[in-house]
């Protein structure tokens, strides 16, 4: 794929095959990739330093075609799932399992680690919505897909499942807690599903897309409400929680949340703040005093308007991070293999990579009841 500017994606057959640039690199031939909700922020031109000519995509699996001289664990022919974080494994942050905050993979920004296919503020790496990808630090995060693990489950373990799981984990959910998830996109759906693993007593999802609410109700065994039908979601949630507020609120929306004209105008139309914070506002205002707000929704720099006074006065614990995929993988692979999680159940569309422009439009405009589009490169389709 070839990004040409906001809302413009081109399927480009003339992209060069990436080369080994570093002794710890591998070149991977992509077998499956996904479009992430956060790719849509790039597609919509919301993320600074998104350069024309980039290839997006940070969720992919592939077969190792070539390895650098320093790679010792992976070998040519291995079929791997590649976590979206690029992690060196040796910096102070990686050593403490903050693999999403690596200090040696992103020269352009200190606020975030390196990611595949996510603008230059994440390191300027081309991503996995392609036939071939250069994978740095190949011995650290890429993981050989275990026998018996479906490739479609594997590709969802590169981001969506760990991010949804970590959203629930950061909520510090205790048995019996009421958990509210804002956003019924793929990550919100997964966060709602994972909240039960921590012993939630009640899980409520808030969104405004009816087909997604219907989906999440069945997939994640939860309650789901359309905020356009309940007028004030904060008041609704207070009433739903005996007027105290939820124990845990999860923001799984990020910078393109709907629901507030003021936020939409200042955040999306005029770019006076880094997107809209409507979901985060609702999370902060809907959680109980002393409650926990977990943020996995993506927000761009430089700043957003948030109700800081409520965070302080209510004694809210705010927890946030990019998912540390490598840390979570062993546990999540076990959950999937044991049937406790069914990631591939959220894939709604399987689309050839050559039709990537249409795939982005379908996902962005939420056409054809799209939940999660999977891209299949031509060579993988033939295999």
């Amino acid at each position, binding site marked *: 794929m070839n990004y*040409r*500017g906001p*809302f413009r*994606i081109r399927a480009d057959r003339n992209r060069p095959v990436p080369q080994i*640039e*570093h002794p*710890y*690199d591998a070149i991977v031939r992509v077998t499956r990739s996904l479009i992430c909700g956060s790719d849509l922020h790039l597609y919509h031109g919301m993320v*600074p*330093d998104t*350069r*024309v000519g*980039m*290839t997006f995509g940070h969720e992919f699996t592939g077969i190792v075609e070539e390895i650098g001289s*320093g790679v*010792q664990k992976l070998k040519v022919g291995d079929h791997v799932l590649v976590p979206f974080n690029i992690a*060196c*494994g*040796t*910096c*102070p942050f990686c*050593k*403490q*399992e*903050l693999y999403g905050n690596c200090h*040696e*993979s*992103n*020269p*352009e*920004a*200190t*606020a975030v680690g*390196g990611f595949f296919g996510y603008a*230059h*503020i994440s*390191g*300027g*790496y*081309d991503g996995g919505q392609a036939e071939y990808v250069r994978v*740095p630090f190949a011995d650290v995060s890429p993981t050989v897909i275990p026998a018996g693990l479906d490739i479609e489950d594997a590709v969802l373990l590169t981001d969506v499942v760990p991010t949804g799981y*970590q959203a629930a*984990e*950061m909520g510090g959910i205790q048995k019996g807690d009421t958990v509210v998830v804002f956003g019924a996109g793929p990550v919100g759906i997964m966060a709602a599903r994972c909240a039960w693993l921590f012993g939630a007593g009640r899980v409520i999802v808030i969104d405004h897309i009816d087909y997604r609410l219907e989906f999440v109700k069945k997939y994640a065994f939860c309650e789901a409400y359309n905020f356009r039908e309940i007028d004030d979601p904060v008041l609704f949630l207070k009433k739903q929680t005996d007027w105290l507020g939820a124990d845990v609120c999860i923001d799984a929306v990020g910078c393109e949340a709907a629901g507030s004209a003021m936020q939409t105008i200042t955040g999306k139309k005029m*770019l006076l703040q880094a997107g809209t914070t409507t979901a985060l506002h609702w999370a902060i205002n809907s959680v109980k005093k002393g409650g926990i707000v977990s943020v996995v929704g993506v927000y*761009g720099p*430089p700043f957003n308007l948030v109700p800081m006074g409520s965070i302080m006065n209510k004694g809210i*614990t705010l927890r946030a*991070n990019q998912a*540390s995929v490598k*840390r979570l993988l062993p546990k999540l692979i076990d959950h999937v293999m044991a049937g406790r999680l069914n990631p591939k159940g959220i894939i709604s569309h399987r689309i050839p990579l050559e039709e990537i*422009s*249409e*795939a*982005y*439009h*379908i996902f962005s*405009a939420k*056409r*054809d009841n799209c939940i999660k589009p999977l891209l299949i490169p031509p060579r993988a389709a033939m295999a």
Partner: protein
Amino acid sequence: MENVKTEPEKIAGIDREIADTSKDHIPGWGIDADPENDPTYPMKHRTGADYERLNYEKPPQQPVKIEILHSVERPGITRVFGTSTPPSGVSGMIRRWAYKYSEATTAHWMGLIFADRVNAVEGIVDDFKKGTIPNLFKERGWSAEWKYNRQGFIRSAVTGLLVTTAVIAFCTSKRK
């Protein structure tokens, strides 16, 4: 993975030098420290590695063959980096300017957003230079809109056409 030490033993040490000095003169220093009070758990498995600062063993440096801009909030580039789309043209000039400012500044981020918009125009010019006419219908995925939301697509197209016609008519009549 074998790590190769390529940095001097101690790059900077002022922070640790100050932090490691004796605190005996401060009454009660550390008396209420509680290692269990760690709101970062389980995301972070605290090992004290933070206190190494930049004196950790680093992987080899990726050779720099293209221009890489880096945040002024770090002393240099990282051991690996992406090689996609180095800065070029007018947008590249704007990006170089933006990277002179820290990540805490509006100039940095708004400069980069502005560069992105300029870059989109450069992309179109570049296409024409190479003899490629951008196919907006294809690039914007409108065939999917035609397939799944035909009525909406027609409505938007007709509205756009009417507004454009009205604007042209208004401008033309003013000139007369």
